[in-house]
């Protein structure tokens, strides 16, 4: 389906939820993709995609995604999956101009109907954060912001970790404190060993929702690594104002498979519960390793024995609820 046909299909008023509840057919399951990106590298400057040499990345060489990725590309690649809505997360646009990505995405949305919501780039420890958040807070597309906090490798991490730009930095927290006033969520992308800091943040700012990106990045799939990841998630899940996006769990060198990712997905859902998890593609970034259709196929296979209403929650309802779609 092209973007236009796709939007048309949605507008003709097919009630995919009702149809899915009736047929139980995987192809009818409506999806709201909670985490994706669009890029136009000819027109816009994304340092990590446009500059050479490429930067170190958890999936390795990412040359293959240094190209345009627009709604038409998304729908060409998503196979039979009924992705009705998407949430665009900032794509490391030129950090000198955080509002630039919003201007461009607003244009894409008005031309194609996608995305339906956005979490935008913000720098919580910059002096102009108040005026940037004022724009985001009042803009109909923007529901949250992402600022990847300063972090270190697991080896270097100590329990009393604190650095400029980290979740314990005073200036960074002063910016974070403004999110509640503008009713903006915080997209947290950080490795799981930093989640104790996130729990403090969640407690100290109870009216701001934290949306953990990419399952808190369980890259280390050793028995010990996964056990430590689970323990970190369990600790954070005690805070009620935290939501988990299940995405970004590709394993370089392997095609997306249930044997590898099934336990990770099921652990995440067990820990956060079916009301507080959302599936997401992380496309096109996860395209470094996997095909878009394979990712949704995988999530569907893992949850096939779930109650259909819980599948609706994980694939659509929870995302629609927290992003106000």
């Amino acid at each position, binding site marked *: 389906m092209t973007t236009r046909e796709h939007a048309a299909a949605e507008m003709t008023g097919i009630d995919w939820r009702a149809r899915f509840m009736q047929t139980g057919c995987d192809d009818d399951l409506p999806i709201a993709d909670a985490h994706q990106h669009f890029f136009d590298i000819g027109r816009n400057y994304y340092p990590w995609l446009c500059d050479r040499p490429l930067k170190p990345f958890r999936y390795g060489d990412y040359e293959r995604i240094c190209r345009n990725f627009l709604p038409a590309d998304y729908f060409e690649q998503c196979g039979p999956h009924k992705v009705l809505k998407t949430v665009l997360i900032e794509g490391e646009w030129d950090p000198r*101009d955080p*509002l630039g990505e*919003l*201007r461009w995405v*607003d*244009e894409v949305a008005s031309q194609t109907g996608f995305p339906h919501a956005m979490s935008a780039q913000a720098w919580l420890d910059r002096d102009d954060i108040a*005026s940037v958040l*004022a*724009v*985001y*807070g*009042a*803009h*109909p597309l923007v529901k949250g912001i992402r600022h990847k906090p300063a972090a270190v490798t697991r080896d270097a991490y100590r329990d009393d970790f604190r650095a400029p730009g980290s979740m314990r930095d005073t200036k960074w927290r002063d910016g974070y404190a403004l999110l509640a006033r503008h009713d903006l969520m915080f997209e947290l992308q950080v490795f799981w060993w930093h989640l104790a800091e996130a729990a403090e943040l969640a407690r100290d700012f109870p009216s701001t929702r934290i949306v953990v990106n990419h399952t808190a990045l369980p890259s280390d799939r050793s028995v010990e690594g996964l056990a430590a990841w689970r323990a970190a998630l369990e600790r954070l899940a005690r805070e009620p104002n935290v939501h988990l996006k299940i995405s970004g769990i590709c394993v370089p060198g392997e095609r997306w498979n249930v044997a590898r990712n099934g336990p990770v997905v099921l652990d995440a859902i067990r820990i956060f519960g079916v009301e507080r998890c959302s599936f997401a593609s992380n496309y096109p970034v996860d395209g470094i390793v996997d095909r878009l259709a394979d990712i949704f196929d995988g999530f569907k296979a893992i949850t096939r024995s779930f109650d259909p209403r819980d599948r609706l929650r994980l694939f659509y309802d929870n995302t629609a609820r927290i992003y106000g779609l």
Partner: protein
Amino acid sequence: MLTLHERNGLDNHAPGDALPLIDAHHHLWNLSEGRYPWLQEAYHEDFFLGDYHAIRRDFGPGDFLRVTSNQRVIGTVHVEAERSRNEQIAETQWLHRVHERFGFPNAVVAHAWFDRDDTAHVLARHASFPLVRGIRSKPVTSAGPGESVSGQRGTMQDPAWLDGFALLERFDLSWDLRVPPWHLPEAAEVAAAFPRIRIALNHAGFAWDRSDAGLRRWRGWMEKLAAQPNVHVKLSEFGLKDEPWRYESNRVIVEDVVAMFGVGRCMFASNYPVASLRASYDTLADGLARMLAPLGREAQERVFYRNALDFYRIRM
């Protein structure tokens, strides 16, 4: 400071000692790109300058460069041109594309309604563009001084209108004020209620009635505005409905405004192409320079570009 003509590789015929100039109020329109109902559809018989058929055609950046070829224009401020209110954001987008290609306009005053449910959304969309500095929004006004609409929907007393107006402070946007002169005292009340919102009065407060009594009344209204330190004035559009542009008559207006507001709060503006119905660009710019000459070069420079640089925070 490069002139617009230098930036575009064009000849410029300004004399060597010409004042650098920022046009603090002009319009551009491309009628095949956007929809401008007042220029393309129903003709307004009650237009404030009378017959305006002559401007119901494209006026693009090339036209602006042509009419200003005798002036040393270093920057401009575009004010919303009553493009279809369904195309408010599209107008802002288009002006940013014009800026990329021609190096001007250098600030954008966009349109938003203050009394709507989506006012905050529209302001946020405008504020996400780097050149947007202010909003022009005309409140509901009455047909004449003897008639009051005070408190009606969309007026300067409407609580919904005032709520939307208050948002300007959050987005750090100024307000371009354009009302018939008998509404200026009400505008002064708004200015007093929001001392941190900066206001640019358009067209010297429209001194339409040039009789002695008319001028006395206009002065009384203007003094109320001048008493509010957050109000600035554009020295522009002295055009009258049934009269030609007269230097002496307009000099009196300029002297009065400068006396009331001081040179620190006055800005040169052309209101082109609308003002072309009465005067050439050179008549406006050279005329004002001459009117201000007795105050000295420094005062001229403030009015011709320094005040606009500050008010609209123009980065050259």
